[in-house]
């Protein structure tokens, strides 16, 4: 039979790999050195830019900014321009008012808007996302059309950034993409969107009603969060009608939202639903009763305190009652119960953590 490899060939193979490994190590060392230099550059630039931004904000807020020749010189390097944009985005988050305006001016006077536009047309998703972020934070409204084109970008980080940018510029109306969205919008993205909506238009309720009927549970949850954030009391009836939703996470969100826009009949309707609710939903209802101080439901809570099977739920009931000012009742009840009675332990726990 023909041998596959002899020792001699094996030696040669090993030596070749050894040389390759050695060369690759040298290459890596060289690369590391370059990276280290880049890191050192960034550290230096960060200090330079921090000083410059502070100085600009503190001393030149009222005047038109002067171009710093050293920074202008550095701006010839693309790496620096991108780093500069990053620093401006970071700074913008920390400042508001005139200071923020100063930062925006700096963005323009160093021509960083051009760089941000260039990033929009880059092929790398993260650079496009960063470009969108920069143009959004710097409120370059003219870029909206360009940004809108990236809404259906295959990369999630680009499309999410575009969604956020549109909401940032157009507010609630910018959420029109929700009609067509099929993928789950993560909690993280929902939170960012929610933070970007400052006001609701008058016709928002109609739109929200449509979203509440979406097949995408994340859209329903976002709609509920918006209702909660903007306290749309007029939606209470609609939400009560949707109480028996199949998705438990939507259901929990719904209960929380109902308590936040609570009306006269809300708690009664929720108590009617209580026996059908899951444990987590029941916990939400109990917590909600405590939050809204539903004194009219005190009897229900008293009854459940003794009858509710789950100790965690009992603790929540006791806590809810305590928050309604029922501490004397609870203390009295405690004295009546035998030491080994679980409800007594629950009351000990609730009273200790509330008093």
């Amino acid at each position, binding site marked *: 039979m023909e041998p596959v490899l002899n020792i001699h060939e094996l030696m040669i193979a090993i030596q070749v790999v050894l040389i390759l490994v050695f060369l690759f190590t040298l290459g890596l060392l060289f690369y590391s050195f370059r990276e280290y230099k880049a890191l050192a550059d960034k550290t230096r630039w960060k200090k330079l830019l921090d000083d410059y931004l502070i100085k600009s904000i503190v001393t030149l807020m009222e005047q038109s900014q002067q171009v710093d020749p050293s920074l202008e010189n550095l701006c010839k390097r693309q790496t620096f321009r991108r780093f500069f944009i990053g620093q401006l985005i970071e700074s913008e988050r920390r400042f508001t008012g005139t200071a923020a305006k100063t930062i925006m001016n700096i963005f323009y006077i160093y021509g960083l808007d051009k760089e941000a536009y260039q990033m929009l047309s880059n092929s790398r998703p993260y650079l496009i996302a960063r470009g969108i972020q920069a143009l959004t934070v710097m409120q370059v409204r003219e870029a909206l059309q360009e940004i809108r084109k990236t809404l259906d970008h295959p990369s999630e980080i680009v499309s999410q950034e575009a969604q956020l940018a549109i909401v940032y510029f157009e507010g609630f109306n910018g959420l029109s993409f929700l009609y067509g969205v099929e993928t789950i919008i993560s909690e993280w993205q929902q939170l960012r969107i929610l933070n970007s909506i400052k006001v609701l238009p008058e016709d928002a309720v109609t739109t929200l009603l449509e979203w509440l009927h979406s097949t995408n549970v994340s859209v329903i949850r976002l709609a509920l969060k918006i209702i909660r954030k903007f306290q749309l009391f007029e939606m209470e009836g609609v939400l009560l009608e949707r109480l028996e939703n199949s998705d438990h996470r939507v259901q929990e969100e719904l209960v929380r939202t109902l308590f936040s826009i609570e009306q006269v009949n809300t708690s009664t309707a929720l108590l009617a639903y209580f026996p059908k609710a899951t444990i987590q939903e029941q916990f939400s209802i109990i917590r909600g009763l405590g939050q809204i101080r539903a004194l009219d439901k005190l009897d229900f809570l008293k009854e459940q305190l003794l009858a509710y099977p789950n100790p965690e739920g009992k603790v929540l009931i006791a806590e809810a009652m305590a928050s309604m000012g029922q501490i004397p009742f609870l203390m009295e009840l405690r004295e009546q119960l035998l030491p080994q009675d679980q409800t007594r*332990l629950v009351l000990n726990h609730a009273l200790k953590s509330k008093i």
Partner: protein
Amino acid sequence: MSEVAKVIYEITIWLFLLYAAGIFSIYTWIAIFSYGALVRYKQGNVFTDYSIIATDPNAPSFSLIAPAYNEGKTIVENVRSLLSIYYHRLEIIIVNDGSKDDSIERLIKAYHLEPIHYIIPGNLSTQEVIQVYKSTNPAFRKLIVVDKKNGGKADALNVGINISKSDYIVCIDVDCIIEQDAVLKLAKPFMEQTDERLIACGGVIRLANNCRIEHGKVLEVSLPKTWLGRSQALEYIRAFVLGRMAWSRASGLILISGAFGAFDKEILLACGGYDHATVGEDMELVVRMRRYMIEHNLPHQVINIPDPLCWTEVPEDKDVLKKQRNRWMRGTMETLWKHRKLIFNPKYGKLGMVSLPYWFFFEFLGPFVEFSGYAIFWFFVFTGTINWSFFIALYALVVFWSVLYSTYAIAVDLVSRQVYSKQKDMRKLLLTAVFEPFYFHPLVTWAGIRGMVDYFRKKSGWGEMTRQGFSQEHQESLRARLVRAGQHILQHFSTVGSLFIGIGLVFSVIEWLHYGSFIHQFKGLTEFLILIGNNLLYSFTLLVVLGMLFGLIHLLNSTLSKWLFNLLLAILLISQLLLAYYFSSSRNLLGTDLFFYSAEEIKNILESSQVLTWKNILALFAGLLAIYSLFHFIAKKWKGSAYLGLGLMGLGITSILLLSLSMEFNSDRDEFVQTAERSKLGFFVESNAEHLIQEIKAEYFDSNPGAVYAGISADYPFLELEQTKDVLGPLMVKTEKVPNLVLIVVEGLGNAYSDPKGYIGDFTPFLSSLKDSSMVWENALSSSGRTFSALPTLLGSLPFASAGFLEQANYPDHFNLLNVLKHNHFQTAFIYGGDGNFDFMAKYLEFNRTDKIIEQRSFPKGYRKLPSSAGESWGYEDQAVLDQLYRQGDGTASPYFHIALTLSTHNPFLINDEKKYADLYEKRLQDPRLTKEQRTFALANRKQLISVINVDDALREFFAKYATRAEFKHTIFVITGDHAMPEIPLQSKIDRYHVPLILYSKMLKEKKRFTNIVSHFDFAPSLLAYYRQNYGLKVPQKVTWIGKGLDIGGSRPGLGIPIMQSKSQLIDFVYDGYHINDQKLFQLDRSLNEDPVSEDVKGSIISVRFEQFRDMNKDFIRSGKLMPDSVYQEFFKK
């Protein structure tokens, strides 16, 4: 180095190379994949505004659980650090796990704690909770302190999980320093989950050693001061930045560090929380959670984020480090063992098919393999078997690879997150990468090995611990399980093993009785004891080997293992009988020969030997079934004894030791008796095992390159200038016409019965008379013990390749009598009465464009075939073959070279006109020149010798007819045997190859007898030298002859005479009056009698010569070429 040691050495090297290649491949994958994961994370998070979740009421809630045991000195500061974590919906649960110090008192005092009544919502089983505390100070409202009875880290974590009211759990070591934004960064992936549920998330852990820490915060990062600490810093970078990121990206992560990891509480509770009974609770939990998700068909993910979120102090003391690594190894083993059913289970997807196998082969076996590497290295050093240049190259590769991987990790770390940003730290890290393989790595390897040992040692303590939610199988400790399995294995082994030995003994008695019926020397008690002894040695050896196989398979599947064990032992017993029968009928041991024949050839042989009958086949299967059933039945009835099993194992191991020391018993009787005394089964298994090793060696290893004899070219070791002396010319009259050449190869014609001096006597009266007017080489040797090498040796003096030259798929260009003479206008023909495809003879002859090939299928009509046995005849009788040979030369003008190979002197020795030759045999027996001993031998081999007389008579007729032809006077006849009959008992090893070599021609000036040792290899070179010198025939200038001519033969100027006993056994070599057989040295006298000698110097010289030939042959096997194309083409162009 012995052949076996060399093979073991090379196999070992290859195994390590394969393992190393596996590691290199997986680490290359990790390097590439982790870089992608890091870049993706970095790009996706570079401008993330984490502050939006810090205070958001919609953000998920987290419980940070920190178990503490005797941390009194630092606990207050550590908790203060935790309280500074920036996250709104966070509760911090400190679980004091029954500390013996004043931890709880310190906490109460520092954080104004007071006992509260706390309803514990979780339901995980834990040790008793003594008291729950909360602070009266609203500034510490996030803090919950739990005091509980000691139960270990896992138990404390479970208490924390029970206490928690949050959506997610973050488990940490209390002595870790957590980055302030750690929970924010952990929260984001949980909030980003969409289709797949994120069940666990880890972050990068960095070393706090030598960092400047104030008020629970790392203010300045520095590398640890000690090499041990720095090595761990590098190791943590490799593990967290490369390893975990790659596995995270590949959805194969199964380890979230116990020092810092976040989990989905709902899934955690559903899985039963941490396992109390393992020291590797962190890995075990993740594996169990993943297992739970897969079993419930829930899409999920486990990820690692590359942000350094946690700082921990690593041991800088060797002993502490070793203890830690010991624990890690035990933890790994526990997890792998507990979840062993997942390994290679496709139902568990990547977890079962990739992640767990990776942990098994590289994380668990890694230290073991590395340690074995060190041990084997020293073994090779001490035994002198090490190839230093190879070892150094390999070691350098491993070290450089390690350095490269570490350098890569440093570079990637630099790109992703610059923790070590000081120039001096980078330098130190790089230096550490260089030195770490020599210091740190062996240390942790050793700790891992100790961990393995401790795992098995300390299992008894674990057996008492209870686990929840798993079946009995899971609850049984490994040791208990192993002991139980071991007992069961030994019991079954003892029952079936005892039976095997018992039945083997009965078979041995039958064997002895049977041999005694036809071997008169084999009737004594000594022979009986020796045969029994040898059979027992091999029986015990095979039993212990199969027993080990049985034990291994039993661990996987007990039913299959028993079935297989019983069946294999039954097959061995049946084989013992069959091989004994083969020996009794062929007088030969069956080794690897069996596997060199095609199914068709075996069928023919069996049919011709009258054994392939339905009755026999049925009897065979019935016997097999009976023995198997006996094993099965007795094993059911008798449980067996573990002690007896151990005893059998001990005897097996002793047998192996004895056999490895060549301690097979034998008497001082002749060769045949010694062969009969051997274990036939043992020989069969041993020779096949050896052959397998040789095959592996030939397949994957090569000899030292450049073994060359003649020195023309290292690429063509056999190539040399043609310098053969014409030894025949001076002894012959030169004729006008170029003489014809007729070669007659007589099947099984040994010297022992074709020469008066042979130990059986002269049973070829015609040949003996012919010798009186011929050149006779009295000490001629064939090149093998079978027919397969006769043609290539006689015609081309060719090497064997791996299993005989004819067995090669493609024949290399070479010179031989057929093509050279044909090139000189000779007509060529080959006549054989049997199947021409036997041993690929026809293929070879066709390759050489032989003008005429007559064999069984093309044999002219009107001739008689040999009598058939069981309906099958070997082919045409020798008279027919020789008649055709005679007829081929008739009327041809050009010279010719005709070859005939006879057939009738082959087992089963059936001939036509048997009575006539039986009478001649009886007549020969009356020859007074026969000694008593010769006559005894002759009587014992009657059938064989009658067939010999038959061929001799056919030769007589042939010559009588030929003598009437005109060209008779210028025709050279050469008669030889292809080998001696193995069926006729041999007196010495060399007898198997001792054949007559007769050159008869009317052109001879005088008869001549030569006593120098020559071989078939010398025939072609001398014949061509004769034709070249006397008739100006064109012969090649460069040739690849092994023989150097009949004048040199096996003497010192030659290469020596290599001889293959069978197609797989190249163990004989004759050189300078000595014979090596299977590493034993014999001295040959002028009559080719041999005596064992122990001349170390001579033996080693001959061994070197033999080894040189083997190397040349191996080079030929490797290259498949004997000479450059140009040499071959050039000759035939002329």
